[in-house]
């Protein structure tokens, strides 16, 4: 059933992308974006920081082409490990489609909870993002940011366990509005995103819960300083719902350094504090991400 839903989502996304690409004429050139202005890839696959989805469109393309990225990200925590791999396409620096598969390995916690050593939640995240107006890079004579609206459809593969811990659904849709701006005269990149979500720990623990089942607004904030053309250092803070009585959830934060090795490869390392996850407190660790783009 879940499998069929994934294909439906993929078709819907393709249906959205096709007309956009055709209306603008097919790609007539590759690449052309300035370093780092495509963003990196979030753990949910969108162009952005590591945790926050930004208004930037992924891929190296300008308004005259099509670009894309592939990413692999890992988070090593005291009691868990998390990984995400995905691909994304950027159309004319206007529209973005992404797919990412997340795996959350409970390691010894899985055994302690009777789920089995290394019990792993897996989740597919299908994303689409449309840039609405504003320009993060060129409109330096205006403080107005680039604004984009995005949607993420997430499907978790462990509905029985999710049900047992009080989650109401094994799939969910997040909607977000992101504002991103490079304040070049200060070498500063700022982002603010507001997300409507029912997700527990991104959806890794399902959607909705015994404490709260409705959509809630959650903010995502990033600030970065451009040290040079290739290096952006900064921090992010992501507010999260707290829907599950059994598994209290905290906001997330990270301190990151993203390094554009060249126009194709960006490496990111971060220190992340993910707080409490399924009653195991202080999940602080290291995040590493490799993103390849064209």
């Amino acid at each position: 059933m879940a499998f069929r839903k994934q294909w439906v989502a993929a078709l819907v996304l393709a249906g959205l992308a096709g007309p956009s690409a055709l209306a603008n004429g097919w790609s007539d050139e590759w690449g052309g974006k300035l370093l780092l202005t495509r963003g990196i890839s979030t753990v949910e696959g969108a162009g952005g920081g590591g945790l926050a989805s930004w208004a930037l469109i992924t891929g190296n393309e300008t308004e005259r082409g099509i670009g894309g990225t592939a990413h692999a990200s890992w988070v090593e925590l005291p009691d868990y490990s998390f990984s995400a791999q995905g691909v994304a396409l950027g159309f004319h620096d206007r529209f973005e489609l992404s797919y990412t598969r997340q795996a959350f390995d409970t390691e010894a916690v899985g055994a302690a909870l009777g789920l089995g050593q290394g019990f792993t939640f897996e989740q597919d995240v299908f994303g689409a993002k449309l840039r609405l107006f504003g320009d993060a890079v060129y409109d330096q004579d205006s403080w107005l940011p680039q604004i984009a609206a995005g949607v993420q459809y997430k499907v978790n593969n462990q509905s029985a366990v999710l049900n047992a811990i009080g989650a109401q659904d094994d799939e969910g849709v997040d909607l977000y509005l992101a504002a991103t701006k490079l304040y070049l005269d200060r070498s500063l990149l700022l982002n603010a995103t507001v997300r409507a979500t029912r997700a527990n720990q991104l959806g890794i623990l399902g959607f909705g819960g015994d404490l709260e089942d409705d959509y809630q607004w959650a903010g995502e904030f990033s600030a970065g300083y451009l040290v040079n053309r290739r290096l952006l250092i900064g921090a992010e803070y992501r507010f999260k719902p707290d829907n599950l009585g059994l598994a209290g959830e905290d906001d997330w934060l990270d301190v990151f350094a993203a390094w554009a090795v060249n126009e194709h490869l960006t490496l990111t390392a971060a220190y992340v504090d993910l707080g409490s996850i399924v009653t195991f407190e202080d999940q602080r660790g290291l995040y590493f991400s490799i993103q390849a783009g064209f």
Partner: protein
Amino acid sequence: MIRSLLLAGLFSAGLSAAALAQSHPPHAQPGELEVDPYTVSDANAGADPIEDADVFVAFGGEAGIARVVDGLLERVREDERIEGIFRASDWPRLRRTLIEQFCYILGGPCTYTGRDMASVHRDHGITTREFNALVENLQDAMDAEGIPFALQNRLLARLAPMHRDVVTR
């Protein structure tokens, strides 16, 4: 009588030359190709000057700016992505007006006498990709002059909105 007529003639010729010079400042300087007349104005530079004097100093004043522009043009000539755009350019004029423009925008004691960005670039069909290629060459040229990155960005922040007038395709 003849002498006074001659004097009057010279005088009036001088006057009209002065009047001509005032209404039509030199659009092209010696060594440059002729250009169609246009209204000379600092507003043609396409950006207001940076008021922080430290930036002009960090660029090494007019001499430093000239080195940045020379470095930029050298790189552009060899950059296959964009050299074609500049192939038919009047290079002495391009160099002079770029120095004037950067000097003016960086708050230096310069006047910009070139044309405005929209009319200069109208017929070139420049793309964002090409615009960005020029930015990268400028960054390389500023790096070579040892200009700190944060101060490079002060200039780039003034140049970036020109994307609207420069990119037509």
